[in-house]
C-alpha cells in the first residue's frame, strides 16, 4: 500500500497497469503539480500526455499511464484530487470500458533489399507514409499500444528504425447523456 518501512498489512491486490485521465485548469505550473505529486510520493509514471481540450473553458486533459496495486492507484487518485486546479480524475480501468490509442512516428532505414518487406508490413498495419522534403521514409502508426508494440517489434526484425511515441491517450466508451 505504501512504501513505509513500517510493516504494511499483507498485500492482497496485484500490480496492474492503470490509465488515469485528469481534467485540469490550464494554468501555469499545473503539470508540475501533477508530476511533482508522483515523484514526491514515490509513484510511477509510465507515460504522460497533456493537451488543451477546450479552448473556451481553458481546460486541459492529462492522460497518465501508471502501474500499481489498486490501493496505490486509489491513493494516487485521491492525491490528484487534492491539487487545486484539478477538476476530476477518472480511472478508465474502473470505468469498465475505454478506448485507447497512441501515435508513433517511425523513421525507417530502407534499402533495396528490405524495401518490399517494409512496405508489406506497413500496409498490413496500416501505417501511413508521411512525405517530406528530405525524402526520408517516415511512417505514422496509430492505435492501441499493443498494436504499435507489435508493429515496432516486427519492423525491427527487418531493418533499423528510430521511433517516437506519444504514449496512450484514452477515453471512456460508456454511453453518456448529452447534458453531462
Amino acid at each position, binding site marked *: 500500500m505504501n512504501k513505509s*518501512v513500517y*510493516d504494511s498489512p499483507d498485500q492482497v491486490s496485484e500490480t496492474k497497469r492503470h490509465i488515469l485521465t485528469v481534467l485540469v485548469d490550464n494554468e501555469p505550473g499545473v503539470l508540475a503539480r501533477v508530476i511533482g*505529486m508522483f515523484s514526491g510520493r514515490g509513484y510511477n509514471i509510465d507515460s504522460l500526455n497533456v493537451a488543451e481540450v477546450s479552448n473556451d473553458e481553458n481546460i486541459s486533459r492529462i492522460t497518465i499511464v501508471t502501474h500499481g496495486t489498486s490501493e496505490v492507484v486509489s491513493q494516487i487518485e485521491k492525491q490528484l484530487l487534492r491539487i*487545486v486546479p484539478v477538476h476530476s480524475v477518472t480511472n478508465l480501468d474502473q470505468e469498465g470500458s475505454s478506448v485507447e490509442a497512441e501515435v508513433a512516428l517511425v523513421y525507417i532505414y530502407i534499402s533495396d533489399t528490405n524495401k518490399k518487406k517494409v512496405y508489406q508490413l506497413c500496409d498490413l498495419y496500416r501505417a501511413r507514409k508521411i512525405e517530406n522534403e528530405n525524402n526520408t521514409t517516415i511512417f505514422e502508426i496509430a492505435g492501441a499500444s499493443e498494436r504499435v508494440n507489435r508493429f515496432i517489434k516486427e519492423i525491427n526484425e527487418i531493418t533499423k528504425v528510430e521511433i517516437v511515441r506519444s504514449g496512450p491517450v484514452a477515453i471512456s466508451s460508456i454511453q453518456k447523456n448529452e447534458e453531462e
Partner: protein
Amino acid sequence: MNNEITGAEIVLKSLADQGVEVVFGYPGGAVLPIYDTLFKQNSIKHVLVRQEGGAIHAAEGYARSTGKTGVVLVTSGPGATNVVTGLTDAMMDSVPIVCITGQVPQHLIGSDAFQECDTTGITRPCTKHNYLVKDVNKLSSVFHEAFTIAQNGRPGPVLIDIPKDVQFASGTYEEKNKIVIPSHRLFEPSPDFEKNKIEEAVELISKAKKPIFYIGGGCINSGPKASKLVREFIDIVGAPVTMTLMGLGVVGSSDKNSLGMLGMHGMYEANMAMHECDVMINIGARFDDRVTGRLDAFSPNSKKIHVDIDESNINKTINVDVPIIGDVKQVVEKMISVWNEKKYKIDSQSLKLWWDKINKWKEVDCLNYNNEGNQIKPQYAVQRLYELTKNTKTFITTEVGQHQMWAAQFYKFEEPNRWLTSGGLGTMGYGFPAAIGAQVGHPDALVIDIAGDASILMNIQEMSTAVQYRLPVKIFILNNEYMGMVRQWQELLHGGRYSESYTDSLPDFVKLAESYRAVGLRAKTTDELDDVINQMIETKNTVIADIWVTKEENCFPMIQSGSAHNEMMLSKDQKQDKKSAEKGKILV
C-alpha cells in the same frame, strides 16, 4: 474616472478586506513597494521578526491560537527559502497561512537575478496551492481565493509570489464578495453528505462492547464548536477517549472518559485500549506512524470508523471499515442526532467490563518516575509549571524533543487551541516564534514556550522581536545540555554512543536574556523551582527560565519503532528484544 491603485495598495486592501489585523514579516528589495504602502496605513499591524523562519512559525502560533489565518510577508530569494520549513510545518499540521513573497521584476525572471529564486517551484510541494501573479488586475482575486483555499477543507499554507513590477503597476481592486471561486478548487461537501455512512457508523458504535474514540487535530481545526460536540457525543456513548499530540485539549484532561495521549510516548492504558478495542472511532486523526506503531499489529480486532475532511487520508496506511469524509462538527452533529433519533443505548454491562479492564491498565501508572533527591526531574518541572499556571489562561507551545513529550504527558489541557506544537514535521525552533504569535493574538494571556536547551537556540534571535513588541513570552528551558531525544535513541538503539548529541559551550541563558534586556532566571534544585516559576509568571517582560534538570532522564513510556501498541516499554530496565530492536533501528 480612474479607480486604479497600485499592486502594493491592492495587497494591503485585500488583506484589510479579509479582516487581517497583523502581518509577520521581514522587508527586502523585492517587497519594498508593499512595505512603503504598509508605512502609510494604520489598520494592519506589522511584527518585524529577526529571521523569516521566525515569521512563519509566529504566524502559525497566531493562527492556531486564534483560529484566524496567519499572514507572512517576506522578500524574494533568501526571504522565500527561509520560510520553506514553516510552510512544510503548516502543511503537515494543517495550519491556515497566507505567505506573500516578493519576486524580482518579470523581465528579470529566469536570468539568475540578484535574490531571485524559483519560489513557486520550490514551494509547490509544501503549500496547498501557490501563485505567481503576473497581472496586477488579477491580484485581488488571487488574494481572496488564496485566503479561501487556506481556510477551506483541510486548512494549509498558500503562497503568493508577486514580482516587483506588479507591485508598482496600477490596476483595479475587486472586493472579496465579488469573487466567485469555481467549486472544483474548493472542498464543498453537499448538505446531505455521507448520510448512510454516518448511520452505519452510529449503529456500529451502539453495538460496540469495547469502543474507543481516537481524536486528532482535525477536531481543533474544525473550530471550538467541534470540540464541544465531540465531548457531548463521547459523554452520551460513555466510551473512553484518547487524543493524538495534535488533538490534546479537544476533550479535557480531567474528563472522566479521557485516557490522555496515545502513541509512541502516549499513555499505556490508551495504547492498550487501542490494541484491544472492538470499535475504533477516529475523528480528525490520520493514523500517523507515531500513533500506530507497527502497522500489521495495529488494533487487530477492531472495526474502524474514520472521519476525515481529506479523502486522501482514508485507507492511506490503515484500512478502515466505515470512512466518512467531512468536517468534524457537521459529521458529529449528525452522529448525535442519529443516535438520539434511533434511541440507541450502548450495552452498559460490556462497557463496564471494558472500563474495568482499562482501570487495571491505569494501575500500571505508566508516567511514574523516580523523583528522589533535590535535583530537578524534567517531569517534575512540567508538573510544577502546570500546578502553578492552571488557574490562569495559559497557552503552551513547545519545541521538539523530550521536553515536548514531557509537556504533552504532564501538562493537563482542558481546552482546545491552548496547545501549540509541531507534530507532523517535528520542527525544532518552532515553539518560541509560535509563542510570539500566540502572544500577539492574545496580549493578556500567559504564553509559555516549554523548550529544550538545543531547540531554543534554533530561533533564539527572536528574543529581539519579543522584547521590541513588549511581548511577555516565557521560555521555560528544560536544560540537560543534551539533545535529549537524540541521546535517548542513541542510548536505547545505538549502544550508548552519544555521537554529537551533547552541546558543549551552551550560552549562559540568564545573561543571554539580560543582553536582550529581558529577564533571566535559573533554578538548579527542587527548592528553587517554585520560586522561579512564580517569579517568571509575575514578571511583565520576556523571561528565560533556565531549569537545570537531571541530564540523562529518558522519556517513558515508549513504543519503540517497529513495535506494536501492546509492546510498550515502561522503563529502561525493560529492554526490547534484540531482533525487533535491530529492525526498529532503521525506522525514524
